[in-house]
């Protein structure tokens, strides 16, 4: 199969709304465009690009916010790689990403498959399943989660029915991370909506042809649905893993701001926060931030490289 990554084919001949004649006119138009963009550009430069460049510099300094930053070369990075709490935070984050992302996507795809079929009240179902994605990141849900997974609360009692008496998860370093995983999975609505859009795009003829050839539902899923929605799947995997690497709010709230107990929910960003804003080691925190950026970029690169093997783009012609 030949791959055409992007084909923005514009109908030849007609160009949309001819720009005003002459160089001056065009320049004026450009100026107007930039002016309209200026709030965004100013915001980008002052609030995103500027701080990012500054933090890149701080990553190579010792900086406690009060005395001017002092250049220390790679010290922050060497300290960081030897720091047991940093190692722990990497461990916790990787476990979270590797467990939560696939489970969330599986559930999203499963429910999307069910909801793709026409049935009564499907709008209602879609809205209901999407809802947690809207509220899941809020602080109040974090509190609810804390309550749900405590001793003698819903989860604990339900487990006991099945003879699994492990007590509440919140206070147990071996389980508490899984309450965060559950919170992430619960917000499967956003990728589900994207899957739904992907499923709608699969040409119905393919299924009809397959049916005529005697393919069962499993086979149709494996040989038609999955390849056809693989670009959407790729997109979701990418988005959700990047998202998972940056988890902060849920860990912070569910653990009562300490990312514990015993550092069991010390996700990367939480350690970064503690180092930067509690201990005022801004140089170290900046080094952590840039290490995360590079790590996420690497993961993204690997995913992009791997898509050759499993993502099928439909040919441009339709």
């Amino acid at each position, binding site marked *: 199969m030949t791959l055409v990554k992007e084909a923005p084919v514009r109908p030849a001949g007609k160009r949309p709304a001819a720009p005003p004649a002459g160089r001056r006119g065009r320049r*004026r138009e450009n100026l107007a465009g930039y002016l309209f963009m200026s709030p965004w550009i100013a915001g980008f430069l002052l609030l995103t690009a500027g701080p990012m460049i500054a933090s890149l510099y701080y990553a190579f300094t010792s900086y*406690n916010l009060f005395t001017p930053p002092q250049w220390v070369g790679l010290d922050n990075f060497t300290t960081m790689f030897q720091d047991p709490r940093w190692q722990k935070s990497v461990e916790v984050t990787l476990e979270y990403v590797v467990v939560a992302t696939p489970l969330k996507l599986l559930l999203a795809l499963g429910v999307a498959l069910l909801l793709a079929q026409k049935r009564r009240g499907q709008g209602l179902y879609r809205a209901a399943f999407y809802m947690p994605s809207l509220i899941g990141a809020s602080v109040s849900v974090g509190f609810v989660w804390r309550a749900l997974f405590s001793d003698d609360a819903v989860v604990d009692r339900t487990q006991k029915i099945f003879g699994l008496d492990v007590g509440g998860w919140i*206070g147990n370093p071996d389980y508490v991370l899984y309450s965060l995983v559950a919170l992430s999975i619960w917000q499967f609505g956003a990728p589900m909506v994207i899957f739904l859009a992907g499923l709608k795009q699969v040409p119905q003829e393919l299924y009809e042809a397959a049916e005529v050839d005697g393919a069962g539902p499993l086979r149709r899923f494996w040989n038609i649905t999955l390849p056809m929605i693989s670009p959407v799947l790729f997109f979701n995997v990418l988005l959700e893993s990047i998202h998972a690497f940056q988890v902060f709010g849920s860990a912070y709230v569910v653990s009562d701001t300490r990312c*514990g107990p*015993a*550092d069991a929910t010390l996700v990367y960003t939480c350690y970064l926060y503690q180092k930067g804003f*509690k201990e005022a*080691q801004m140089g170290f925190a900046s080094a952590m931030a840039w290490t995360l950026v590079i790590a996420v970029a690497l993961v993204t690169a690997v995913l992009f490289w791997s898509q050759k093997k499993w993502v099928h783009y439909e040919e441009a012609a339709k």
Partner: protein
Amino acid sequence: MQQGGTVERRTILKAAGASLAVAGLGATATACGGGSGSGDGTVTIRYAWWGGEPRTIAIKKTIALFEKKFPKIKVKPEFTDYEAFWEKFQTQASGGNPPDVFQNAVGFLRKYDKRGVLLDLKTQADAGNLSLDNFPNGVLANGQVDGKQIAVPVGANTMALVIDLKAFQKAGVEAKFGWTWDEYFDALQTIQDKLKIAGDTGYFSIMYLYDLYLRQNGKAFFTDTDLGFTEDDLTQWWEDGYKRVRSGLVADPKKVEQVKPKSALSAGLAASEFTWDNFSIRYEGEGESDYGLAPIPTTDGEATGQYLGSLMLSAFSGTEHPEEVAQFIDFMVHDPEVGAIMGYDRGILATTEQYEAFKPTDANNKGVAAYEEQVAEAGVLGKITPHPSGADVVEAAFLRIGGEVAQGKTKPADAAEALFSEAKAAFAG
């Protein structure tokens, strides 16, 4: 069409320019708003503190009182909980915009003195804007660093053992002055045997208790610049602690974690907890039993290692109104009416004027007063342990790493090593 388009664009350009200009003006206006002087000589000072709702209600009353007596000074309150307070303060202070007056604690003095944030109030006292008289028991020294008065105490507190009175009574054990650690742990054992609850909520993660234990043994948690004990000392302390978690003498840390922000004592998980005596008011509100203050166990049957700590008021070195700020602090620490409103929320009132103005009527405040009197009479109070810059970070690390030990996730020896390494970084910061 072409023509019209140009005109429209021009209008839009103008509009855009105008709105940018307005935004610019707005920024200037806000910048001006930051200044706190005004035409009629009224000045505004910002006052920030941490604490629960009762404290906030009381402090707001005292502010109203102050504004009535000093109509030319307006006070803008800012308040939050302890952890958020110091995060916010650090950011504000580094940006040169901390509150003019704020609540402070011993562990933060050297850190912010080193960073040049704290005003030396001695100069204001010399100028007659603030009185440093009538602080009994030497608590004024709690706010002194290298000969400077960078904070003024509002209260004096000391560590105590808060006990569940009903549980102690039911188990038939009694907390006596001068009791030893062995006697204390025997009492917990009796409680565990008879009542099937733990005796303590996790004593070995509390830095200020370990400090007392070290002081009983001729050491202290801090020296002027470093930790005042060895890794072996701490390993032993945490090994004993973990042993008591496993035997159930100390409450299960998993359960303690889950009842947060409630205390494990008021949640009924254990019968006693070490904390500062002025915090004891929280237990009555949170729990269903009756709570009282009991003496700190000793090593030799006499010395508890205790000293008077303080919550204090400090001022920003860069404040535009040092004189008014000094007057404000003076009022807050000396005015009898303020003392009557605040009570013992931040410890026994630090000045004699305020101490005499407040006569406790409820059991809790009476208990705090009786406890501090008892401690003072016993003659066990010593000089406060020094707090080097970074003491606050070490305290947080001690609590966290102690928690890891309790959970069985870190071996005591490794935990002690981790604390020493984090402390080193904190002192250097």
